[in-house]
């Protein structure tokens, strides 16, 4: 390289340094590329603010170009699937709700649908319970998409979107808290129905929320959809076409951004989704921007579904009638928090010995599930969330496996990022919307 008259080079501890003194710029670039000094391997994460939790990215970069990208996962592995095998079937919801912690109701519903299939009580789950499940899932879809858009925006430096997203998510978490008592990790959906009915005032608050949300959602359009900077960062970034999606098993907004309107709510309906009116948005762009648009549109569709749920809510039970499965106590708010209702305690401790035995048996031992296996899948905000549940006829799950969409979709990271710019890796990963709690379980 020292033969290059226009760009003399000398070796330093920092690598080759070129001194350009006019002449052919192309030649300089060529020799710099030949030197291959710019090829470095960057370890990004697992503790990094823009990797969505404890995701570790190993990037081999040549200048600004990513030549190879790999994921390191497992930093948030908590052994939930193993732990489930040591708790009874009802306690399972307490664990699965913590998997993808941004979509707790989807985890719970998928798990409960699987258990109910094994029990053969799918048809006996009361209508009200199913409607409330749909209602909670759609609210949850909103909150999950809001986090995706908010954190995705933040990683681009668009902090206003982040503030907006978390502002609106807070409204949803308030509703979750009102209904379940908790903002996250609800364990509210149980095999056979729900832990308890909607509290008074929930429907009113939901109607208010719908009004607010209809006002707030267009703000994202105004702020981001037509924003030239936003579009420049998102368009054609994280490209994955239909062939790639199918091969890599990518589902959810990633698959729909490639133009295939595959949504389990339409394709393989559960919880009565076939009776709701909503559209499945798609784009043909195969990129991050398309996924953003799809998420935005899905939020509007979720609002439609929530509205229909509210119109459908009829008074009635929220747990199967079978007393061998239904949790015996109705919960009530006491001075020390939520617990068994005093009426129920009075009944089992004072009047009915059989009720006491029944309560004790069901709470300590749990119910038995006939041996066999079942697969239940729901359309989570990230894609197909599948649960493989195996029972050996005992009071505990024999094996529960979650096919978490984040886990599968994250495999597409390499295909989306290789050959692109380093800065685009952040955008591509954000458009996958992986939640490490779900990836690692």
């Amino acid at each position, binding site marked *: 390289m020292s033969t290059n008259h226009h760009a003399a080079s000398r070796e330093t501890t920092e690598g080759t340094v070129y001194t350009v003194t006019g002449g052919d710029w192309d030649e300089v670039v060529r020799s710099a590329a030949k030197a291959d000094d710019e090829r470095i391997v960057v370890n990004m994460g697992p503790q990094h603010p823009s990797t969505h939790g404890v995701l570790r990215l190993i990037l081999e970069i040549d200048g600004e170009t990513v030549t190879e990208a790999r994921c390191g*996962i*497992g930093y948030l*592995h908590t*052994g939930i*699937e*193993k*732990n489930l*095998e*040591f*708790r009874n079937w009802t306690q399972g919801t307490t664990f699965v709700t913590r998997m993808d912690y941004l979509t707790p109701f989807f985890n719970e519903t998928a798990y409960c649908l699987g258990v109910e*299939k*094994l029990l*053969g009580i799918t048809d006996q789950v009361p209508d009200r319970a199913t409607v409330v499940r749909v209602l909670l899932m759609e609210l949850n879809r909103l909150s999950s998409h809001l986090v995706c858009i908010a954190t995705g925006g933040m990683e681009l430096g668009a902090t206003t979107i982040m503030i907006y997203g978390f502002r609106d998510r807070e409204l949803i978490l308030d509703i979750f808290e009102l209904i379940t008592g908790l903002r996250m990790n609800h364990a509210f959906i149980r095999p056979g129905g729900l832990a308890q009915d909607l509290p008074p005032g929930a429907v009113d608050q939901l109607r208010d929320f719908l009004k607010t949300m209809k006002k707030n959602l267009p703000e994202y359009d105004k702020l981001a959809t037509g924003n030239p900077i936003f579009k420049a960062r998102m368009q054609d970034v994280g490209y994955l076409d239909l062939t790639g999606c*199918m*091969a*890599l*098993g*990518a*589902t959810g907004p990633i698959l729909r951004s490639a133009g*295939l309107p*595959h949504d389990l709510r339409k*394709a*393989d309906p559960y919880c009565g989704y076939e009776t709701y009116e909503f559209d499945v948005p798609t784009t043909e762009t195969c990129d991050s921007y398309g996924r953003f648009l799809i998420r935005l549109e899905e939020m509007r569709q979720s609002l439609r579904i929530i509205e229909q749920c509210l119109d459908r809510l009829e008074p009635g039970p929220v747990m199967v009638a079978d007393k061998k499965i239904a949790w015996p106590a109705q919960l009530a708010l006491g001075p020390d928090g939520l617990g068994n209702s005093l009426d129920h305690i009075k009944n089992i401790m004072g009047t009915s010995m059989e009720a006491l035995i029944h309560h004790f048996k069901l709470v300590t*031992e*749990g119910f038995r599930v006939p*041996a*066999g*296996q*079942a*697969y239940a*899948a729901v359309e989570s905000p990230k894609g*197909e969330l*599948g649960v*493989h549940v*195996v029972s*050996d*006829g*005992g*009071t*505990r799950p*024999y*094996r529960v*496996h979650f*096919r978490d969409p984040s*886990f*599968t979709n*994250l*495999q597409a990271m390499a295909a989306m990022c290789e050959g692109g710019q380093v800065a685009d890796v952040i955008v591509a990963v954000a458009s996958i919307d992986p939640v490490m709690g779900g990836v*690692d*379980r």
Partner: protein
Amino acid sequence: MSDTTPGTTPGDDGAVPAPRESAGPEVIGVRKGMFGARGGGDTSGYGGLVRTVALPGPSHRPYGSYFDEVADELEGALEEQGLLPSNAIEKTVVDRGELTFHIAREHLVRVASTLRDDPALRFELCTGVSGVHYPGDRGRELHAVYHLRSITHGRTVRLEVCAPDADPHVPSLVSVYPTNDWHEREAYDFFGLVFDGHPALTRIMMPDDWQGFPQRKDYPLGGIPVEYKGAQIPAPDQRRSYS
């Protein structure tokens, strides 16, 4: 599980999966006693209870729903390739509205690519592999369970293959469904199922130098007793389990 487990063939040298008992439910173990009490003076008589644990056995035609069509098409397509369906498909189970083909492991890749490519089948999407460990299913302890989804026809089907503990090899499906890359690594990590032909079968969740396969049934959960409201609560795997 006791040695007298009925309906199972003790693994001799364990080199190949034991042949499946024809007809009848698949016995995976025996459950004894009741209430989980052991070693105490049993005055109830329940301690003498012995029950076999069995998964649903093979089904007979008609299977119902779209299952007959899928089974016909699959068997026909395999025959066209010169493969006797009864050699590849060990048994077909229809249970709880789901169709399961138990596949001989050496034919797994052929069956999967047939399911994917045949226009009448078109199971384009594989939702990964789930390992299950049945220590009581002698000679067929490790099961790999695949769920396939056909977006074209709106159908799902389950494939199940098994391998003995002594020879935990199952062919990899990455060549047919690349999405199974991480899923197979996960099943290897947790169950020690070796997927032959996988491009890079390494641990994915556990640290690289981890010993053992945590989700096997003989792998302890671990944990320590904790104090709650003045009482010692034993670790989860030390608590009473109800048989």
